[in-house]
Structure formats: structure tokens, C-alpha cells
């Protein structure tokens, strides 16, 4: 796998998530964390899930979503911060979108 994208901002407030998606490769993984969890309900998310057709691995930090009362959808994997550490080393590099 290639790049791990840590998405920490709401796409409703800033265009960081859109920038992330514009460079996303099909081997990459995405982690929604902090305010990035809000993106589960953003239209960009729907297009991401459709576009990648399951090839991009999409994750969300479960405590960050729960704290915000956001339901985790089935297309997305619920993970812990310790899993983010593991993903850091199963990918070649990390880009943080904050």
C-alpha cells in the first residue's frame, strides 16, 4: 500500500478533505479522525465510497466518532488510535490533512 491519509478537519468547514481526495491513489488508505469524523455525512464521502469501489481502505477512529454522536457506516472500518500506529507502518508514508 502507498499513502496513509489522516483527515482531521470537517469538509463542511474547510476544503482540506477535497484536497486529500484529489491526490488519493487507489492503493491508499484514509483515516477519519477528530473533526474529520463529520465527513461521514458529507457528499464527498458518498462519491469516495462509490469511486473507489472498495479498493481504498476507509477507517474512522471509533472514540472520535462516538464522542461526536456520529453513526459509523458499514463501508467504513471502526479503528482505535493504536491501529493508526500500525497503519503508519503498513503504508509507505503519512499525510495529515489538518
Amino acid at each position, binding site marked *: 500500500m502507498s499513502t496513509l491519509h489522516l483527515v*482531521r478537519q*470537517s469538509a*463542511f*468547514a474547510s476544503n482540506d478533505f477535497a484536497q486529500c481526495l484529489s491526490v488519493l491513489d487507489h492503493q491508499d488508505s484514509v483515516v477519519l479522525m*477528530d*473533526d474529520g469524523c*463529520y465527513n461521514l*455525512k458529507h457528499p464527498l464521502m458518498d462519491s469516495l465510497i462509490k469511486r473507489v469501489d472498495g479498493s481504498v481502505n476507509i477507517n474512522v477512529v471509533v*472514540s*472520535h466518532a*462516538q*464522542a*461526536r*454522536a456520529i453513526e459509523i457506516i458499514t463501508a467504513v472500518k471502526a479503528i482505535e488510535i493504536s491501529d493508526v500506529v500500525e497503519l503508519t507502518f503498513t503504508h509507505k508514508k503519512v499525510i495529515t490533512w489538518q
Partner: protein
Amino acid sequence: MISIEQQSSSSAQANGLAIINSKAPFSSTHGKDALDIALIFGSFEQKVSLFFQGDGVYQLIADQDGSLLAIKDYLKTFSAFEFYDIEDIYVCQQSLSNRQLDENFHIDEVKVLSSIEFSAALNRHQHVLRF
């Protein structure tokens, strides 16, 4: 439109401070910083109204729990608004629906307003701060 013009031209009624909350609750201190101002105005018996727009509407949503993030959850303090006579709490309907959020809030007395009503309610205040 007529009712709005009447409201915005009735400058005699314009009073107090409106605070617009525009940021989500947990990643920045803006919400807490705005709350501190609201409570001080309340304790000095000065009129203050709270507006929630954009990502600020997330501050009102029910069933949140900042303690999962090791954060002292300032949202719980919203329940003190009644004690401080802070009664005018407005949320932008468009911002809620953009975010696919239900009108399910963790405090009572939240008034859901259309953009035109939201604007008109803002206009009834003398000063505005935004966080």
C-alpha cells in the same frame, strides 16, 4: 419579507449581544471561549443570545460525550443557560440539513430558524461576536 423589514428597522428594539458559534465543539476552544462570554453576560444580567451556524450546530447535537476524548465536556454547561436567563438560542435549519442532522438537541428551548429568520433574529441585537 415585510415582517423582516419591520424587525430590522425597529432599531429601538435592538439590544444585547448576539454570539454566533461557527465551530465544531471538540477540536478548537472557540465554543468554550464563546460560552465563557455568554455566561459572564448572563451573570451581569446583560441580554445575550446564542446563534449556531455552520459547523457550530454540532455544539447542540444530543448524545455527544467529550469524556471519550479525555476532554472536559463544556457542552454540559449549556444546561445552565436557564439559570443565567439565556433564553434565546437559535440554530440555522439549513446548516442542520446540510449536515444531515436531526433536530435532536441536548438542551431544550432551541429555536430552529430558516436563513431569513436567522438573519432577522441577528438583526434584533446591538452587537455581534462570532467564534
